[in-house]
């Protein structure tokens, strides 16, 4: 899969400017709830983290998982159950969601990682659908109803999450933590080996790397971070339902990542923002959202295959090359 290689030869000049951009972005995110509806923003943050976690796998390892909804939705159920039935602290409940998603990632990844390309995608799809079926049948998930009325509670016992602004900033903090975790993984010695494996797997094997273990490691990390997004979403929206575990959700995260730009750090955030904003603003109109998103998807595949952010980076790279 020839995806996103533009970040590999990053110039130092780009670093300072991306620091400045990052600071501006964080400032904008801090101010955002005063201009936009906080619930929508939180939805964007949860899905953006989910898409970033998914991108860790496709963009930096080259593995297309078609079953990431299982980790996102599964974690939502675990968190919702812990917060509602066991009365756990929201942070502990989210951590349980993360741990649960990681264990599921280990199991699904262990089975799927031996296969490549479309077979890998199909196995992840099949296993996640099996999990969706378990969620439909198991008593603790309450079938079609899902787990409703999850209390937001008090973070660490004293931060009242029922205040929309507080909830927003906690969600933002979780998002930023997840985003920087991904950034760290990608730019770590381990991430370097992941890049090498994606570039030339056989060569990596011949250098003595047990590539399956590296892929499985990345798969579990991606699943755990998708779980962090799902668990947070359960606390924010106070419910966990079947929507989050079904294959449509896996498709949606692929769409977000593709739209924004596979293999770029901020692409998935842009993609998630775009899709969620469209769904929100068109929800009230008569125009079917799915048709519009379908059209956008087709345009994206036909005209800008690198995704929005991917194309912009490519443009900047070309400009920089002709200038120097």
């Amino acid at each position: 899969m020839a995806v996103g290689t533009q970040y590999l030869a990053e110039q130092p000049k780009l670093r300072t400017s991306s620091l400045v951009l990052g600071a501006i972005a964080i400032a904008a995110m801090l101010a955002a709830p005063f201009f936009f509806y906080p619930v929508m923003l939180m939805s964007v943050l949860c899905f953006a983290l989910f898409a970033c976690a998914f991108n860790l796998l496709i963009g930096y390892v080259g593995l297309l998982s078609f079953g990431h909804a299982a980790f996102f939705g599964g974690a939502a159920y675990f968190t919702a159950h812990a917060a509602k039935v066991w009365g756990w602290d929201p942070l502990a409940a989210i951590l349980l969601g993360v741990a649960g998603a990681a264990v599921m990632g280990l199991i699904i990844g262990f089975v799927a990682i031996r296969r490549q390309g479309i077979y890998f995608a199909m196995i992840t799809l099949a296993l996640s659908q099996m999990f969706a079926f378990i969620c439909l049948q198991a008593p603790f998930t309450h079938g079609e109803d899902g787990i409703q009325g999850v209390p937001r509670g008090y973070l660490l016992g004293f931060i009242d999450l029922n205040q929309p602004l507080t909830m927003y900033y906690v969600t933002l903090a979780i998002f930023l933590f997840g985003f920087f975790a991904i950034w760290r993984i990608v730019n770590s010695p381990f991430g370097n080996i992941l890049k090498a494996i994606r570039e030339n797997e056989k060569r990596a094997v011949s250098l003595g790397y047990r590539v399956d273990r590296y892929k499985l490691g990345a798969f579990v990390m991606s699943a755990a971070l998708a779980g962090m997004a799902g668990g947070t979403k359960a606390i924010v929206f106070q419910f966990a339902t079947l929507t989050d575990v079904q294959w449509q959700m896996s498709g949606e995260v692929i769409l977000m990542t593709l739209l924004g730009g596979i293999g770029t750090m901020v692409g998935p955030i842009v993609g998630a923002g775009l899709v969620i904003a469209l769904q929100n603003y068109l929800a009230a109109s008569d125009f079917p959202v799915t048709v519009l998103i379908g059209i956008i998807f087709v345009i994206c595949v036909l005209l800008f295959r690198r995704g929005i952010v991917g194309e912009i980076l490519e443009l900047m790279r070309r400009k920089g090359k002709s200038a120097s």
Partner: protein
Amino acid sequence: MVSTQPILSATGLTMEFRGFLAVKDVTLSVNEGTIHALIGPNGAGKTTVFNLLTKFLTPTRGQITFKGSDITGLKPAEVARLGLVRSFQISAVFPHLTVLDNVRVALQRPSGLATQFWRSSNALSALDERAMELIDAVNLSSYRNLTASELSYGRKRALEIATTLALDPAMLLLDEPMAGMGHEDIGRISDLIRRIAKNRTVLMVEHNLNVVADLCDRVTVLARGEILSDGSYDKVSQDPRVREAYMGTEHE
């Protein structure tokens, strides 16, 4: 340095692909400290033998021993960890990584940096000194910041050798290291192979017979998956069966 002790030996190696015998009962031993050539006409099964020896393929029958232990059941990454490292026919580099990064990837595993996902990749600069030594050894220092895809073919091969040497392997298997190269590059790579073979064993597939005559201590000739002849270059080149197999295909 040349000894008569085999470092790598294969007995009765057979590879069957759906009824097609690609490699038939090949028995081969490579002595420690030698440069050993595996030659033969196209389709003789040389690359298949390489894939079998490095476990990228599992033989239908036969046994492989490296440094006295049986490696027949091992996985390719394990074989590499034992010090038997191969190159590929199509140059095996990481195309979008820089020359320096290519070599550092090989150094990461032995230095225990490969699995650290919580550290900054700046930690890898600890490997720069050793990496630059290896890059110097193949005369690529002035290209260290180029990506591998920007290098000429010959330099890619040199980079590949530097990366392989980073593992400090006891034995190198080079699959056509000079395929598609010009005279100048051939001379340079020949010198390089001679230099690295001073304290290592090399088994190489090579088509250029001048190079083989010049460089190799021993030659094994493979044709249609079977060993035709084995011995010094002079002995092998006098063998009428070898002449027939070679002339028959080389001068069609």
